[in-house]
C-alpha cells in the first residue's frame, strides 16, 4: 500500500516539475549589475535599479500574473568581481537576466558567462561596439548606444566642420580603446589625421599632464575617449589650462546629462556630443523623467537609465509571449518582435543583438538659455535610425549570415 502511494507521489511530483515552456521557479529574477559607488554611479547606479522597477510596474507584471523580482550589485568596475557576481547570480540565486553593466570590460566578461549559461543579458551601460561585433552573442541585446554610434555622430559632425586633426585622451580599458578606435576610423575616413594619443588609468583625478601633451600636439581637436568622472575632470582642467583659448577644441566623445549637471553650464556650455535619449524630448519622456527623478534623489534619467527601462519592458513582453524565461529563447523572441516604448519609440533588434533607434547630436546650452537645473541640451541634429549604428555586415559578428 505504502509502496503504491510512493509511486503515485513520485508521478505527481514529476508531472509538476518544470517543463521547457515555463517560467523557472515561477519567478522572473532580474539582476541589475553596475557601478554603485564610484565614477559611474550617478549615470548608472541606483538610477538603473529605479528604472528597472518602473519598467516592471508600468508593464503591469503583477496584474498579468508574472512574479518579478529585482536584485542589484556593485561590480566596482572590476571584471573579476563582475564575473563572480554574474556566476553566483546564475548558478545559485536563480537570476534569469542581467541588465545594465556599464564598463565594457565587465560587460564583455558577463557577455561570455551569460552565453555559457544560456541566460539573457540586456546591455545598456556598456559602450564597446564589440558587444555586437566580434563578441556578439545569441544571449545578448545591446540596447542604448555604442562606441560606433558615438564616433559616427560626434566624430562626423566635428570633422565636417573643420576639426580635422585630433589628439586622443583615452581611458585605458576596453571601452576607451574601442571608442578611440571607432572615432579614429571616422576621422581618417573623412580625410582627417590623428596627431597623437595618451592613455590614462580609469578613475584618474589629475589630467594636467595629459592636457599638456595634448597642447603640445597642436591638434585642433582634443578627443576625450573616457566617461563619467574622468570626463568631467578632464573638461574642467582643460578650461583651467586655457585649451580652448589657445585655439584647440574639446570633443567629449561620451557625455551624460549627469556629467553636465556636475560640471555646471558655465564650464560645459557649447560641448557637442551624441546621445540616444534626452528627458526633455516630448511629453512622454518628460512624464517619465518626472516620476524617475522623484525616486532617484532628483537626478534626471540618463540615456543609460532610459535604456534599462525600455529593455526590461521589451524583455517582459517576450517572456509573457513565450510563457518562458529561458534566456536563449527570450532573446530570440526579443529580436523577432518589433520594439515600442515611450522613451525610444518604435524600433527593432538586429540579428547581432544591436537595438536600432535614432541618435541625436546635442549641444549644451549657454547659462542664459537654460531655464534651470537639468534644462541643459539643445538638439543640433537627428541621426535617423538606419544611419545611427554600424551596418550589420561590417561588425564581423559570427551570428550574421553573409
Amino acid at each position, binding site marked *: 500500500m505504502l509502496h503504491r502511494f510512493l509511486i503515485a507521489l513520485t508521478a505527481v511530483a514529476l508531472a509538476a516539475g518544470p517543463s521547457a515552456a515555463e517560467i523557472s521557479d515561477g519567478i522572473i529574477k532580474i539582476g541589475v549589475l553596475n557601478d554603485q559607488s564610484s565614477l559611474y554611479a550617478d549615470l548608472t547606479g541606483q538610477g538603473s535599479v529605479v528604472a528597472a522597477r518602473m519598467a516592471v510596474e508600468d508593464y503591469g507584471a503583477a496584474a498579468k500574473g508574472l512574479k518579478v523580482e529585482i536584485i542589484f550589485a556593485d561590480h566596482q568596475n572590476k571584471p573579476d568581481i563582475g564575473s563572480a557576481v554574474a556566476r553566483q547570480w546564475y548558478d545559485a540565486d536563480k537570476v534569469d537576466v542581467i541588465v545594465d553593466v556599464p564598463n565594457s570590460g565587465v560587460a564583455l566578461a558577463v557577455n561570455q558567462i551569460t552565453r555559457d549559461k544560456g541566460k539573457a543579458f540586456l546591455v545598456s551601460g556598456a559602450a564597446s561596439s564589440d558587444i555586437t561585433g566580434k563578441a556578439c552573442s545569441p544571449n545578448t541585446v545591446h540596447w542604448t548606444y555604442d562606441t560606433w554610434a558615438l564616433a559616427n555622430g560626434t566624430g562626423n559632425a566635428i570633422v565636417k566642420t573643420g576639426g580635422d586633426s585630433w589628439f586622443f585622451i583615452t581611458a585605458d580599458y576596453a571601452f576607451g580603446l574601442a571608442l578611440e578606435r571607432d572615432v579614429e576610423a571616422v576621422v581618417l575616413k573623412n580625410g582627417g589625421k590623428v596627431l597623437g594619443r595618451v592613455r590614462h588609468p580609469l*578613475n584618474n583625478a589629475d589630467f594636467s599632464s595629459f592636457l599638456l601633451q595634448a*597642447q603640445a600636439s597642436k591638434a585642433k581637436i582634443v578627443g576625450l575617449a573616457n566617461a563619467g568622472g574622468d570626463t568631467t*575632470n578632464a573638461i574642467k582642467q582643460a578650461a*583651467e589650462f*586655457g585649451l580652448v583659448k589657445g585655439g584647440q577644441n574639446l570633443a567629449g566623445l561620451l557625455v551624460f546629462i549627469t556629467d553636465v549637471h556636475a560640471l555646471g553650464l558655465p564650464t560645459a556650455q557649447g560641448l557637442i556630443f551624441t546621445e540616444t535619449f534626452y528627458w526633455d524630448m516630448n511629453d512622454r519622456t518628460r512624464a517619465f523623467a518626472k516620476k524617475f527623478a522623484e525616486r532617484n534623489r532628483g537626478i534626471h534619467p540618463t540615456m543609460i537609465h532610459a535604456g534599462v527601462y525600455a529593455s526590461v519592458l521589451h524583455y517582459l513582453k517576450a517572456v509573457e509571449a513565450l510563457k518562458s524565461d529561458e534566456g536563449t529563447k527570450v532573446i530570440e523572441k526579443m529580436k523577432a518582435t518589433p520594439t515600442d516604448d515611450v522613451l525610444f519609440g518604435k524600433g527593432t533588434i538586429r540579428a547581432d543583438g544591436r537595438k536600432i533607434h535614432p541618435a541625436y547630436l546635442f549641444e549644451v546650452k549657454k547659462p542664459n538659455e537654460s531655464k534651470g537645473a537639468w534644462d541643459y541640451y539643445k538638439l543640433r541634429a537627428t541621426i535617423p535610425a538606419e544611419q545611427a549604428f554600424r551596418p550589420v555586415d561590417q561588425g564581423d559578428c559570427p551570428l550574421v549570415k553573409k
Partner: protein
Amino acid sequence: MIPILGIPPQALFGQLLIGLINGSFYALLSLGLAVIFGLLNIINFTHGAQYMMGAFVAWFLLQYAGLGYWWALLIAPIVVGALGILLERVMLKRLYGLDHLYGLLLTFGLALIIQGLFRNQFGSSGQPYTLPAQLAGGQNLGFMFLPNYRAWVIGFSLTICLATWFVIERTRLGAYLRAATENPTLVQAFGINVPRMITLTYGFGVSLAALAGVMAAPIYQVNPLMGADLIIVVFAVVVIGGMGSILGSIVTGFGLGIIEGLTKVFYPEASNTVIFVIMVLVLLVKPAGLFGRAQ
C-alpha cells in the same frame, strides 16, 4: 633643442612643474598624517575623508552663505579641525594605550561611514566649484601654459609645509610637542597639559587635510570620493618618507609628485602604480623609510 629620451625639453619642463603641483597636495596631506602619527601614534585613515570634508565645506559656504574661496580657505580648516578635535576627545583618546591597529580600524571605519553618507546625499559625480576670479587665467611660460591657480597652489602649500616644519622643529612649542611624544609623563610633570596639546595637534593635522581639500576644490570636482583614492597614495608617500618624519613627508611628497608626473609622459598606463612600486623598493632597502629612524 635636443630631445631628452625622445621628449622635447619644453614638454619635460612642463611635466616637471605639473609634478610639483601634484606633489604639493601629496606634501600637504602627508604632512598632516606625519604630524598626527609622530605625536599621537595614530594612523589617521580618516584623513582622506577630512580632505573631502574641507572641499565640501568650501562648497557649502559658496552655495548657502555666498562666501567665496578666500573665506573657505580660512573657515573650512577651522570647521573640519573642530570636528577632528571632537573626534579625538570622544573616540581616539581611548585608544592611545592600545596597539596601532585599533586606531587604524576606528579611523578607517569612520572614513567609510563619512564617505558613504556624503555619497548618499550628494551622489558620485561631484559638485562644481569655480576658480576664484583673482586667480583665473594663466601665464605663458614659453614651454607651457601655467594657470595662475596652480602657481598659487605650489607657493601656498610650500609656505604652509615649511611653516609647519619650522614650528615643530625650531620653536619652543615644537620642542614641547616633541618632548611629549618621547615621554609624556615627564613633560606633564613640568606643568604642561599634555592631553590638551595632543588634542590640538590632532585638530591641526586635520585642518591641514581640510586646507588641501579647499585648494583641490577648484581643480577637481567636489566629490564624496575624492579623498578615498588619494589617501592610499598619500599613505604610500608617508611610508616612503618614514612614518612620523615631518621633513621626510614634505620632501617625498614633492619628489613623488615629480616622479609620477614623469611617468605620465614616458609610460602613462603605469602612472597610478609607480608610487607603490617605489614604496616596495624603498621598504626593501630602508624599512623605516627614507627619512625615518629605526625604533
